[in-house]
């Protein structure tokens, strides 16, 4: 279990399972996906992740992440 190959974690992002390196932060996830931080909002296990903490909040195995943005609506 200590092997380097075992250090990845699995999280759910917008309903899709995703493998990430252990220690990935919210900022790291957004960057890996290719999203601008200022255009989205992030929820982790039903809790809002404040934008100011994106660089420090590390994801844990099994986290359910929602990444949303504004779209056209009435």
């Amino acid at each position, binding site marked *: 279990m200590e092997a380097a190959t075992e250090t990845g974690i699995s999280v759910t992002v917008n309903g899709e399972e995703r493998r990430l390196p252990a220690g990935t932060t919210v900022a790291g996830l957004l960057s890996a*996906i290719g999203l601008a931080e200022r255009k989205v909002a992030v929820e982790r296990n039903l809790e809002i992740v404040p*934008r100011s903490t994106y660089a420090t909040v590390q994801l844990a195995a099994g986290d359910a992440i929602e990444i949303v*943005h*504004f779209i*056209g609506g009435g």
Partner: protein
Amino acid sequence: MDGSANIQDDFWEVAGRRFRSRLVVGTGRYKSLEETAASIEASGAEMVTVAVRRVNLSDPGAPMLQDFVPPTRYTYLPNTAGCHTAQEAVRTLRLAREAGGWNLVKLEVLGPPPFLYPDMAATFEAAAALLADNFEVMVYCADDPVAAKRLEEMGCVAIMPLGAPIGSGMGVVNPYMIRAIKAQAKVPVLVDAGIGTASDAAFAMELGCDAVLLNSAIAHAQDPVRMAVAMKHAVIAGREAFLAGRMGRDYKADASSPMDGLIRRG
């Protein structure tokens, strides 16, 4: 008297924010983001409604609404479209607040098709939850003066009864109750939903409403940008007509030209 100066002095206020345009427009149902941007600009609106949805992870570089309708220029009014419970509404708007940094929101909890009529029991519950979470709530509601008054007393900052079902384009089908809701309200009243064309928007304003909220009437017009211009003028015309005070109605004629001084034979 300079009429244009008077129009400039006319504004409405919600949650401490002043708006000169009395037209609030939705950003949905357009063919493209370019068309959305052009139509909204042509409408002269200062406030726009927006929805909150998951980012498409398979196309993260896709253009976003914010790039075309900048929140620095327009006041975004995030909605709860698609939410059927208070919990979903609160969850959605908390995300909107984090994405946008503001707390002025549009609450709408809808019943089932074919009318998508406001579900008032669920709306009351969601309004209470949002108000407790320090949101400033503009609320879509039934054209029911009792429900409207209760929402106002709960602390909602604007009351938004439907003119007709969403996207129906049927106009203001119950002007009697829209007028009644406005007459008793101490917060802004907006007709939201049902507007089909310019005369509907003008009519809503002639009833004394503070503003009109519409989306499909522009987005589904054959020429959305042109209809946006029409709506801009309609809302101004309706507001001015309301302020001017219309003449009375009568079943008999009252000649416009004097009868004195007519030329006569002989």
